[in-house]
């Protein structure tokens, strides 16, 4: 067969891909097999195969636990509000940047807008702690307007607002790049023609710019929906504390706490799997909705 001959003469090509394949199997597919521990009572001595089956016991325990409702809705609310507030900002930013005609000025604005993306989460949360502390500058402002100082980082009612707004601060500029790139494809002749026909600036944005970037918007939306239950575990873990846990406790922080602080591997894996499955369902649902709206263009 020709195939075998091809492989023989080009074996070095296979050698090049080999490391990636091996690493993927070891660190991605073995863990998928390891998910079995969610259905077992895992003990390190007995190993994955040797541990006893318990079926859906851990899932049932999670679903019936008093924490469940709070964790589930905290996760959902944090990510849905985050998406609703955060998703349009990069698009608006890109449309506005697109109006800046002077290339140098546009570059400089972008340089600033991208910067927060390079600040680590630890530093961002550290900055939140100092800026929002009861004696910090924001509270000085609050007091200047006659308000009482608020401890933003330890009161549950402010957690979501702080989390989402700081998330926009961190990511909106960077997220706008992809739309800016897509907008570069708009034919300037279209704008000229539309202007001659008397279209206003807003009309041109609405009828020319937005339709051009619509496919990109759709793809970004689908991907965002696929992590509706998972986004931002790292940052929530840093912002989490005993005082604000009423709203800051989300499934990913819970998975970490149960898994690593209580070494409850099976239960933690079950909670994580539950989360993954919801994400997958979200991804598929949003993908099929977007496909219908977006003339058959989805990602899967």
């Amino acid at each position, binding site marked *: 067969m020709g195939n075998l001959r091809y492989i023989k003469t080009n074996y070095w090509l296979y050698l*090049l891909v080999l490391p990636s394949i091996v690493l993927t199997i070891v660190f991605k597919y073995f863990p998928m097999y390891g*998910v079995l521990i969610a259905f077992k009572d895992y003990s390190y001595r007995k190993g*994955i195969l040797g541990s006893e089956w318990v079926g859906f016991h851990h899932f049932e325990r999670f679903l019936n636990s008093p924490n469940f409702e709070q964790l589930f809705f905290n996760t959902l609310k944090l990510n849905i509000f985050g998406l609703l507030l955060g998703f349009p900002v990069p698009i608006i930013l890109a449309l506005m940047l697109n109006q800046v005609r002077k290339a140098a000025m546009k570059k400089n604005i972008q340089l600033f807008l991208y910067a927060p993306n390079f600040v680590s989460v630890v*530093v961002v949360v*550290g900055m939140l702690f100092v800026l929002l502390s009861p004696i910090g*500058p924001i509270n000085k402002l609050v007091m200047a307007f006659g308000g009482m100082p608020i401890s933003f980082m330890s009161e549950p009612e402010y957690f979501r607002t702080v989390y989402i707004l700081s998330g926009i601060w961190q990511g909106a500029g960077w997220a706008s790049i992809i739309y800016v790139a897509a907008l570069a494809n708009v034919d300037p002749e279209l704008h000229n023609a539309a202007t001659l026909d008397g279209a206003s600036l807003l009309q041109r944005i609405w009828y020319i710019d937005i339709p051009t970037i619509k496919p990109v918007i759709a793809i970004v939306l689908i991907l965002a929906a696929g992590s509706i239950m998972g986004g931002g575990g790292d940052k929530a*873990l840093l912002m989490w504390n005993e005082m604000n846990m009423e709203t800051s406790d989300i499934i990913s922080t819970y998975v970490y706490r149960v898994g690593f602080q209580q070494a409850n591997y099976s239960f933690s894996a079950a909670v994580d799997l539950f989360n993954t499955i919801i994400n997958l369902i979200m991804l598929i649902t949003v993908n099929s909705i977007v496909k219908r709206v977006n003339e058959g263009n989805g990602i899967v």
Partner: protein
Amino acid sequence: MDYIKPTRMDRIVLGITYTLLFLGVLMIVGPLIYVVVASFMEPTALLNKGISFDVADYNLEGYKLILSDDNILRGFLNALLYSSVFTVITVTVCVFAGYPLSLDAFIGRKMIMTLFIITMFFGGGLIPTYLVVKQLGMLDTIWALVIPGAVSVWNIILARTFFRSLPKELNEAAKIDGGSDIMIFFRIVLPLSKPIVFVLALYAFVGHWNDFFQSLIYLDSQDKYPLQLVLRRILILNKVDPNIIASVKEQAELARLSELMKYAAIVISSIPLLVMYPFFQKYFEKGVMVGSLK
């Protein structure tokens, strides 16, 4: 072309646009500038007056404290080591995989791609991955931080897209000159791939430098902690270096020192990225462009 004078309405819209962009930039730069200025200030003055214009309120004590903290320096060097090793591994592995996958004739291309892409949407999760790393005896070693995440499907796709964009004639010409395929890859294709290698390396380095979660899970020994974990202790857990505590008895003084360190820690940890930042800029968009071409 005919220049059409913008209408009054359009000029108002443009005016609002520029104002909003300006405000956006201000909102990003504001907190950063505040932190930098505050890092040079005496905490009591900062507390009472806020940002002040009195030279007497400024000193370098915060920086002296931070720079005399061995944990910070060690964390810095650890992070440098981990991020560099990770960058070399991930870029090598992903570029090597990207090349064969970019060739139409490569048999098994679809199957291998599917194997990779599945992992973008489904994974075993935190605990099963941790158990694999543990089983391999990688816990509390640098390997846990540089090996498990080395294969990035996204990077492989970026590399593959880049290789596809190279002119095919190049290959043919080299073959006529008698070069073997593997020679062509190393002598001709790779040297032409500097832009993609640079973009991948940039993202890999920055991502790893800023990550704290992997090291939180996989490392136990404090002396192996990278910078971000040291920062987490200072900034978020509010724990000051025991060496300082030993020499300082009063609570108030301790609180003052810990405040002093915070701002300076934020500034110092950001220096490497800030220095590189302007040089990066032209590569940002290149990276995203290559990625969005599909």
